[in-house]
């Protein structure tokens, strides 16, 4: 199954570009759902042999990242009636260009990271570029919900990086990490809902009352 995980990792990069390039919220959420599914398949593809650890991780990831969170976020956009990210701080073509640069940069950096038992040479560059794309979405989008999605992509990138260490981190801890991320995004979603009610907008740039 050596080719399969590389294929999955490339697809993760494609979903990153999908997140960067679309204006429709529902489409962005679909991209994260697909990314979540890819991430769930990765541990099994990287460590074939059907160990309980990998299967459990795959099942937990699938449940949280591919089913529950996308469903919850879809509920949030329906309740808040947001359809599009209208005015990002930088244009979409610029976002995509920066995304491409992030991928190139990640391959450059990954050469300097000596990983002893890395299963795939693509793992580290894909992880780093996903982290960068997440940070990019977080910092350049105005809608609070887009920022939540940016945070989710950032966490996905860290998850991919964590896969290089998956045999060294116990399963229970992984479950704790997944649970924390789930609760974190859940609370963010609730706050987004309240922002929408209080300000009649999901625009986080309106949150400017507090300053010195």
């Amino acid at each position, binding site marked *: 199954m050596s080719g399969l995980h590389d294929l999955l990792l490339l697809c993760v990069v494609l979903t990153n570009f999908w997140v960067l390039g679309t204006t429709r919220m529902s489409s962005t959420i679909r991209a994260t759902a697909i990314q979540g599914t890819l991430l769930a398949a990765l541990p099994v593809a990287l460590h074939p042999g059907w160990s309980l650890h990998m299967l459990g991780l795959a099942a937990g990831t699938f449940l949280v990242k591919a089913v529950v969170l996308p469903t919850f976020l879809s509920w949030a956009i329906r309740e808040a009636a947001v359809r599009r990210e209208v005015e990002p701080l930088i244009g979409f073509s610029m976002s995509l260009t920066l995304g491409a640069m992030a991928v190139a940069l990640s391959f450059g950096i990954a050469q*300097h*990271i*000596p*990983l*002893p038992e890395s299963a795939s040479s693509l793992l580290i560059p894909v992880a780093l570029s996903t*982290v960068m794309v997440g*940070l990019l979405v*977080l910092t350049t989008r105005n809608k*609070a919900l887009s*920022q939540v999605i940016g*945070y989710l992509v*950032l*966490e996905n990138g*860290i998850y991919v*990086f*964590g896969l*290089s*260490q998956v045999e*060294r*981190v116990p399963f229970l*801890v992984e479950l*704790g*990490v997944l649970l*924390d*991320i789930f*609760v*974190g995004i859940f*609370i*963010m979603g609730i*706050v987004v809902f*309240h*922002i929408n009610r*209080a*300000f009649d907008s999901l625009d*986080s740039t309106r*949150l*400017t*009352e*507090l300053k*010195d």
Partner: protein
Amino acid sequence: MLLLLLVLLPAAMAGVAYLVRPVPLRLGCLVGTAFVHLAVVGWLWAVPLAPTLSGWLAIDPLGLLVLSVVSLLFAVVAVYAVGFLRTEPPRGGRVFVTGLLGFLAGSTLVAVSHHLALLWVGMETTTLALAPLVYHRHDRRSLEAVWKYLLLSSVGIALALLGTFFVAAAQTSGRPLILEDLVSGGAGLQPALLRTAFVFLLVGYGTKMGLAPLHAWKPDTYGEAPSLVSGLMAGGLTSCAFLGLARITEVTMAAGQAAFVEPLLLAFGLVSLVVAAAFIIGQADLKRLLAYSSVEHMGLLVLGLGLGGVGPYGTVLHLVNNGLTKGFMFLAVGNVVLVTGSASSEAARGILRRLPVSGVVLLLGLFAVTGSPPFGLFLSEFTILNAAIAQGHPWIALAVVLLLALIFVGMAAVVLEVVYRPAETPAPAPRESLLLVAGPILLLLAVLLLGLWVPPPLHRVLLDAARGLGVAP
């Protein structure tokens, strides 16, 4: 097993508090858990405990210090919360009590974790448990505060997770991510990966501590959250975050990377002091003032850590002093807010007449928090200054003294205005409830005691903790 129970008890009680309907029973859960926790922590001082769960949970001097600060502070805050929730509309504080107990569970996990990933899980739990409490008032301003808090803390802590994975990647032998094995196998850690890990963890846990320039969420969050929550954050949450940073510092130093670590810590420390001084001057809101003071003290903590020599001893002493001081200061300001309805210094004028007890606590607290003798913070700040001179950094010592003087002037201007300037419309003040003043007074006395005399058992633990973090004094 006891350590595991210490984490699970508050977690279970958080669930119970959410489910029980009668308010007195729920408050009983809160206060009862707080005191059982405090009693067990007191017992840990007397009886050394072997690590459990194959070394994941263990109690060491530094962890014990943080755990004790959090536990004592939490007990005080729990009693205060009973008085605070009485003044509230009868929502009964269901989410409030659950959030507080969840925080206790998370911070206990941080303090007793010797597994770096488990420590991360605890840290994230503390962040999330307090988020609903920041939004307690349910208005626009608190909404903005909770959004900034959640987003910045979450990104910070996500980077800390990345850093933790980097530590795992750097490790070549021993049990993965177990603190003892990382320290003893320090020479075998891969330097490049470890340095990357340190940077990510410094930024991640530094955001949670509120080191400048990563402190953007802090004034808004402390300013808008209910005062007792701000106190718990400034005294407890930041101590936990510091523990996370101290753990990775210990590992990185053990790997012989002191030359890489120390300048970074010194830079963050000095920048924090500068930023705190700049924003404390002319600050008109008591809670934001204390938030910037917290940035200052976090800066001092990492400064002591980065200086070496007697610096780490000053840092661990300062950790205890700062935790307790921030606790009672925020509670005293909380009493002011309960009477005047705002934390602005203008509204709170003449507080000494209206709230004599809280007013005196606030006034004495001013001297405590700015590190004047005879309070404990004087001793710890003096030790850190001493380290700067002894380690050959006279310029750092000079800069710190100047900045501390500036901060004193800035804080004194606000607090003295609040305490002494007569109010334009002197309002009749209600009697101060014992629930709301007993805790702050107790913490104030503790900080005073620590300035006059460090009890020998505490001194021993402080020395051991400092030895773990650097050269013994």
